[in-house]
């Protein structure tokens, strides 16, 4: 930039800085503070129980699968742990357990009870969701 341009820019800057500024109304600050007083305080969103479970379950499942693979595999290093024999035939046990659970849930009385339980669970979830909305609306009116 040329020297005369710098001098010119400086004087333009000084003139603009000192020029008249449009001001808001005299009670501007009071009006904003009043709006702040009347506005609802933003409530930080809380983590619900379900979101916590949702974020924890995948880690637990992955960890369980890894443990299962490790203890049922034939890695030489695991022989040194001397606990490998405890899990020998674990799949047979799981199959037996699955079959007994299958028999249990296929019985008429248990499936009837499960249906009632599931319906109650859905009703509770709906109630929780709607009551949460009512609370936030109430906070907004304060």
């Amino acid at each position, binding site marked *: 930039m040329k020297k*005369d341009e710098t*001098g*010119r*820019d400086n*004087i*333009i*800057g000084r*003139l*603009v*800085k*000192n*020029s*008249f*500024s*449009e*001001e*808001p*109304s*005299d*009670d*501007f*600050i*009071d*009006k*904003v*503070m009043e*709006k*702040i*007083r009347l*506005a609802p305080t*933003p409530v930080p969103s809380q983590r619900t129980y379900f979101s916590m479970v949702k974020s924890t379950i995948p880690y637990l499942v992955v960890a369980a699968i890894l443990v299962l693979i490790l203890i049922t595999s034939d890695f030489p290093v695991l022989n040194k742990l001397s606990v490998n024999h405890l899990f020998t035939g674990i799949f047979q046990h799981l199959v037996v357990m699955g079959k007994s659970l299958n028999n249990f849930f296929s019985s008429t009385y248990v499936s009837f009870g499960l249906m009632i339980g599931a319906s109650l669970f859905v009703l509770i979830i709906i109630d929780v969701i709607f009551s949460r909305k009512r609370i936030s609306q109430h906070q907004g009116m304060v």
Partner: protein
Amino acid sequence: MPAGLFFFMKYQDDSFYIDRVLSGDVSAYSMLIGKHKTLVYSIALKILNNKEDAEEVAQDCFLKAYQSLKTFERKSKFSTWLYRIVYNAAISRTRKKRIDFIPIDDHVVHNYTEDGIVTGIEEIGPEEQKAMVEKAMQQLTDDEGLLITLFYKGENSIEEISNITGLSMSNVKVRLHRIRKKLHDALCVMLAKEMN
């Protein structure tokens, strides 16, 4: 606190008031409003061209900034963050995507060699100076008025103006250069008329 008192007060750094507000002293926010209200209002006014709308947008923006103060990460200046809120709110109010920055090539910028402004402007009184600059600033388009206000009155850097308006830094730099030339040109014409 009466608004007139702010005139006599020297403001502290923004972070001082922000810390106080965040620790529960809501009244400290009035100091932040007092410190920035003129420029916030000016930005809104330059975009909206309506005093009532500008005042309403400026008030809403201070409220929004207060409610979002916890999310302000202090990576930039508070003023830059606040002006960006105002800029976006005013643009939304006009239902435009962004302010119509006129392409710089469309401007007719005169080449001049005279050094008239530097000497001539000193010869007139301060009130006349103010009136003349005001008249010259009225000849600027909205976007030009906004940029020059942010740069000189808001004392924002080119990078900060770029963050506020979304224009590239080189674009802001070139535009400011052209606006200064345009203002100088207008002032020279006015001074020449005054001399005659």
